[in-house]
């Protein structure tokens, strides 16, 4: 799973969000490192909708601007949980190896 996809799914854990709210949430989640372009965001949402990981959950018009809300589905939440477990396991292994490396360095 690519990082933007991971971050979009994670942002939707907080509840349904529209386009700009998702951009801001992704930026916050990545500590300002990932600044998604709008075209990339909707490309990702297109793919995630087709695979059933997110779904549209309503539209509204605010100040003449159309907003569409997206929600995380159960399938999307499961995929995110699996990816999180994979990333955590990998990070744990790397941390253990780093600790060993430091110990070896100290000797």
């Amino acid at each position, binding site marked *: *799973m*690519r990082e933007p996809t991971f971050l979009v799914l994670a942002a939707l854990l907080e509840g349904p969000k*529209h*386009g*700009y709210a998702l*951009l*801001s949430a992704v930026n916050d989640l990545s500590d300002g490192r990932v600044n998604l*372009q*709008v*075209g*990339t*965001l*909707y*490309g990702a949402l*297109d*793919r*995630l909708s*087709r*695979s059933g990981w997110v779904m549209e959950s309503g*539209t509204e018009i605010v100040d003449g*601007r*159309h*907003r*569409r809300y997206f929600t995380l589905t159960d399938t999307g939440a499961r*995929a995110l949980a699996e990816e999180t477990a994979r990333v955590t396991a990998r990070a744990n292994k790397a941390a253990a190896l780093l600790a060993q490396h430091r110990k070896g360095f100290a000797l």
Partner: protein
Amino acid sequence: MNALEQQYRRALRLYPAEWRRSNEDVVVGTLLDAAEHEDRSIPRRGEIANLVLNAVNSRLTRVPSLSRAARDTAATTALAVGAAVALTSAMQLEAGTGAVRAFDPDIATLGPFTSPTVVVYGLWLGAFFAAIAGFRGTARASVAATIPAAVASRLIADAEGMFGRPTWTFLALLIALALLVVSGSPGRRWPAFVSTFLAATAVLLSVNAQTASAFQNPFWMDAPGFLGWFPALTLAAAAGVFARRQRALATAALVVTLPFTAAAVVNGGISQAASYALLVALGLVVVCAAPRLFGWRLTLERR
């Protein structure tokens, strides 16, 4: 509608009409929300280019209803076949340079090469070796670069009146193969690249040996009469592979055949065009109808 909104809507025109009907207003709303929060009255840096790239990607992934496996196999096959076309064409074309120079020492060339198309060949071969070495991103970038390079090489060769001008049909074939490569992800297994490359090179060299001389007709696909065999053979091979239930490979073979068949239709004349058109139609019917007929998985999601 302000100037910024007009700019955004112009960029979104490149998306497929169906996509625009359901998404344009929402995407413009998000773009304007972002501009307002960032206090901008012009697009963010790279924003328009990003919309254009996503529009092209949206079209590429929507046109053929191919599974990801079929697209990736087509990308692998197209990369190897494109490199074989580049190698054999370069060999044939450059072999004629000496004869041309002997005939007319003042003829315009690009240094020791007949035309700037040598850059296109170099990029294809570079992509092939990068793919074998496992640098798949570099391979795709190199193939993507062949598209503008192909157009530029012809324009430069035209302007300078160079001998080795590639025909537009030949360039269109290379561009079609390049689009197949960039619309998928070439595989990781180098034996697949090498075997396809060797097989395609052998076929192309044998075809070249039977057709016009390099001096008179350096671009082999402009010689009518033989090219129909290529799609016919690959269609037969695809049918054989399909019978063995390797659907992604069969579909990929058919898709990669289409640019060659189209070139044959363009160059083969009216009488041959009908038979080639039949082959093209058969290929298209199989490629487009097979997913529904056989219940193939249509998802294009990259996971």
